[in-house]
């Protein structure tokens, strides 16, 4: 479809109105920022069956720098009424999520990365839209991650285990509709939550989780995410470190919430 993202979204809406199930594919920055109005007015508003796919999500964008870092796509998509927002954690979940959104009749935003990340999904995993998955059990603190950050949470959990802190790790791949039930449950169980997202800390996973616990069962929480700044070039490892979303930053956040917990 060329460098014509606005047109692509319109074409997809036309296909959907004619009963097809179109997938639009572009970089996350263009799928969200550039065509925000088209997605809102042509897909979300008429609730058409279009799957909007955005690759290079977050800060890890193949050393392309700020122009290609979609650090606000989740926030943009989450505020569109009726939009489902999914950020799969690994390739196992991605394959299942694609099948699930074909079955689901309605608009979906699917977030991709283009690099390989460690597998976190358990054997026999079954993805369901709106259902989070506990990928590690633990009683001391809950780490909630989405997308490739789930693997970073798992790394952090390993480090914490060496300090005697057992983390429950949750893969919140669907950020909308969010799994309210599991968030309240883990808030009650561990009374401390750290969210981790490859996204601006405003408007994404951390905000979504805070909305749920704030209204239902307030516990101490901390958000690991990009601190409302634009990114730059660098390797994934360098970026995760500089923008403070690496396992060691998750570990630091966990220590802080545990200290604050009554």
């Amino acid at each position: 479809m060329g460098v014509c993202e606005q047109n692509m979204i319109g074409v997809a809406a036309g296909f959907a109105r004619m009963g097809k199930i179109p997938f639009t594919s572009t970089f996350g920055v263009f799928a969200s920022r550039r065509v925000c109005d088209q997605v809102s007015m042509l897909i979300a508003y008429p609730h058409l069956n279009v799957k909007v796919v955005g690759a290079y999500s977050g800060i890890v964008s193949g050393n392309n720098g700020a122009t290609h870092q979609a650090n606000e796509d989740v926030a943009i998509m989450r505020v569109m009424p009726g939009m489902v927002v999914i950020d799969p954690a690994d390739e196992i979940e991605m394959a299942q999520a694609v099948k699930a959104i074909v079955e689901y009749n309605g608009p979906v935003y699917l977030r991709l990365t283009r690099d390989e990340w460690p597998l976190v999904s358990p054997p026999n995993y079954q993805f369901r839209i709106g259902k989070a998955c506990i990928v590690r059990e633990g009683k001391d603190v809950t780490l909630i991650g989405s997308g490739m950050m789930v693997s970073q949470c798992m790394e952090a959990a390993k480090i914490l285990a060496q300090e005697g802190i057992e983390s429950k790790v949750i893969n919140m791949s669907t950020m909308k509709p969010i799994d309210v039930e599991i968030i309240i449950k883990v808030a009650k169980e561990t009374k401390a939550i750290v969210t981790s997202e490859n996204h601006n800390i405003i408007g994404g996973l951390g905000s979504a989780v805070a909305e749920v616990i704030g209204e239902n069962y307030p516990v101490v929480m901390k958000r690991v995410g990009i601190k409302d700044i634009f990114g730059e070039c660098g390797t994934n490892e360098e970026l995760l470190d500089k923008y403070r979303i690496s396992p060691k930053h998750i570990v630091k956040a966990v220590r802080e919430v545990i200290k604050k917990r009554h």
Partner: protein
Amino acid sequence: MSISEDKIKQLKEMAKSVRRNLLKAIYEGKMGHPGGSLSATDILVYLYFSKLQIFPEDPSRKDREIFILSKGHAASALYAVLAARGFFSKDLLKIFGKINSSLQVHPDMTKVPGVEISTGALGMGLSVCVGMALASRMDGSKSRVYVLIGDGEMQSGQVWEASICAPHYKLDNLVAILDYNKIQLLGPVSQIMGIEPVAEKWKARGWEVIEIDGHNMSEIDEALEKTEEVKGKPSIIIAHTIKGKGVSFMENTARWHGGAPTEEEVKRALEELKD
């Protein structure tokens, strides 16, 4: 075969009635876009009463033809035509633009039978039609897709994206009609952001271009007939129109782009549009 005198007379009567009804709707709703609705009326009436293969009793029938009002601001004209064509009761026009109404000031496809896509955020309809024309071809359907775009919309980037996309896919089942009334919200298009030379631009992008008087039923008829013979590329009919057509004090002025007439004004307008 050219259109008969009788048919033209009939269509003209219908257009007059649609103009009256849309003005009443705008008056009742206290908001709307009289200028661009009146300029588009004759084209809409021709399409719905002499062209489109549509089924008011089964609006989503698979073999229907598609019309999209990309310039969603002319919703009052579309509603008046859809009501006259039997998609819903004319009584409904009274709730145009009111709270809880299915007839939004810009059309919402989820609320109104016969509205193929929600429009009103300008510049988007042509792309949607490209998708529909591609889907239609994929299904082996002979149905054609028609879209009315505004001249203000022609300033928008998405229209230009779609304008290279449709010829790229050789969509000869797609017909765009430009309601070229030459006035937008704040004044003449030529002063705000000129779009001329319009015909040359579309030609250069690979479209079959036909220019007509958009208020002349036999010219509309002839142009649309001609598009059916065009192979391997989409067609655009540049319809020269008059903003506010049919109501003397609304013609050729940006004053009546948006807004509703007062009781006095609507009376005068309806008087001018008497049978």
